[in-house]
């Protein structure tokens, strides 16, 4: 693997931020009504301004915001987890966080909890994410061993997937099953500011925690022992990685369902541009993830379907992510001795 052209992290982040801004503007313009920015002053001042205002502010803006936050958190978590496990095939899925959040959300829907209290769904999913992460930590034991952590995560992810399937199997009413299946596909459609506001504080906390792992991840490139002697608190780092990921990804899972592959694809694409430095990858991955999810969301709005139903975001990311996975494996096979 050659470290190809390298941009300074600042320049890379600036470029990605610019891309993100333009995508956000496009996202605000695309929908049932094509509503580009240059038409905004006219429409917002004209006769149907209330309707256009409602569309922009109540429908498109929260959708764009959630897509942005979801993508940023997933990309960020993916980069940090790959740096921490020193494995380019890691993301929030392997630590079982998305599995735990999905399971908790499914249980919330079934028990009627989510229906009785509309905000119950996101909070339950967040709780589920945190619980599974704690379970993973407990399984992995003390010490900073990465391999045990990955195994524990895989075991927990498999377990939560099995429980989710069990819940679907035992569905008391067929509509719960259908709702859950659609929710699990992952979508940011029909988001309200309510949902964004609920997810944001946790995501912000997770974001800050994960940004702080930068130095530790760079030192970990040399191995656990060398990193410890460079002043990195290994157990503290692990706590920060796990707590940060749970806080960042849990509420995203709750609000938008299961969106996969973002945490896998984005760090991988950006890694050559930061010279494979795991620490410098963090912020660009967040920005890149936001761009990727926004792009996918815009595409989902543009693809026409016979039933007028949008293609779910999670489906699109999986459709793009899986072939990417194949390409990745082929590339890795070629570089092996």
């Amino acid at each position, binding site marked *: *693997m*050659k*470290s190809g052209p390298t941009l300074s992290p600042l320049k890379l982040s600036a470029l990605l931020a610019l891309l993100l801004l333009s995508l956000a503007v496009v996202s605000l313009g695309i929908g049932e009504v094509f509503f580009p920015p240059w038409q905004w002053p006219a429409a917002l001042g004209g006769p149907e301004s209330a309707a256009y205002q409602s569309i922009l502010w109540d429908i498109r803006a929260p959708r764009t915001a959630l897509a942005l936050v979801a993508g940023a958190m997933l990309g960020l978590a993916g980069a940090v987890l790959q740096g921490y496990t*020193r494995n380019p095939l890691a993301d929030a899925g392997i630590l079982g966080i998305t599995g735990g959040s999905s399971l908790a959300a499914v249980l919330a829907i079934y028990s009627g909890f989510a229906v009785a209290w509309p905000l119950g769904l996101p909070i339950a999913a967040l709780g589920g994410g945190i619980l599974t992460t704690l379970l993973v930590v407990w399984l992995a034991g003390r010490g900073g061993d990465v391999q045990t952590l990955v195994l524990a995560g895989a075991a927990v992810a498999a377990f939560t997937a099995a429980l989710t399937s069990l819940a679907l199997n035992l569905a008391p009413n067929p509509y719960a099953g259908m709702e859950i299946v659609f929710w699990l596909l992952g979508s940011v459609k029909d988001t309200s500011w309510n949902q964004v506001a609920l997810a944001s504080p946790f995501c912000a906390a997770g974001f800050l925690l994960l940004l702080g792992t*930068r*130095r530790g991840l*760079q*030192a*970990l*490139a*040399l*191995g656990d*022992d*060398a990193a*410890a*002697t*460079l*002043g*990195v*608190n290994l157990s503290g780092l692990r706590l920060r990685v796990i707590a940060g990921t749970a806080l960042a990804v849990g509420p995203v899972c709750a609000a938008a369902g299961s969106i996969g592959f973002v945490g896998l694809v984005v760090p991988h694409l950006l890694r050559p541009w930061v*010279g*494979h*430095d*795991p*620490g410098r990858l963090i912020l660009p991955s967040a920005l890149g993830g936001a761009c990727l999810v926004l792009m996918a969301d815009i595409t989902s709005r543009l693809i026409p379907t016979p039933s007028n139903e949008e293609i779910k975001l999670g489906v699109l990311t999986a459709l793009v992510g899986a072939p990417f996975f194949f390409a990745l494996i082929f590339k890795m096979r070629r570089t092996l001795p």
Partner: protein
Amino acid sequence: MKTGLACRGLGVKLGNRWVLEDLDYTLESGGIHGLIGPNGAGKTTLLRALAGLLPLKKGEITLDGTNLASISRAQRAREAGYLPQNGSCHWPLPVERLVELGRIPHLESSDILGSADRDAVRKALEQTDTWDLRHRTVTELSGGERARVLLARVLAGCPRVLLIDEPLAGLDLYHQLQVMELLQHIASEPGRLVCVVMHDLSLALRHCTVLTLLDRGKVLWTGAPADLLKTSRLDRVFHVELQAFHAECGPALVPVRRLDA
């Protein structure tokens, strides 16, 4: 200015086994301290304990009289550098970037390298003869080149205490001598303490000022290399009949045959 690292009554347990038991060991600046002994003697464990990586079941380690445990992690990172055995780099970083990682304990929170940092990196690269490799990717280097780059990383941190585990593994003869000369030079700087775990007895005898013989978790002998030759301990400890040849540069120990108990 003298630096002193001392262990008293050190006890380290890995799993259910006492790897080090009731160990007393003192190191001082001025010359390389060599740690030798057969496989499984506990050399790496002792070095890791000195680096602060292992919890001590018994005893204490002091640096200049202060208990190592009471020194903050960050301070310890600045004072001591540890180079593990068979080190590796998990990501294909450019060589220069890897060596820059050695400056982490000295960086402010902004992670930007100052001129002092860059000078230290440059010096480390030049000392280990890896300056020409600085734009190459670590994973593309040969084993020996990589070993030197990892050594440069430790040196870049300019620590007072250098704890190095088998620095010569994978190096060709030229670079073996070069590294030992480099370490000797560093050890001669005032206030610098260098402790090296070695397998090559000849080089150990030649370049180390103090040799410590370890076996089964206990210190069997400490002293000057010349005195070590006079004892017959080496044969018994290594289970090998050794023959000493005295050349101009120093003594050379050749293993003649295995001794079965």
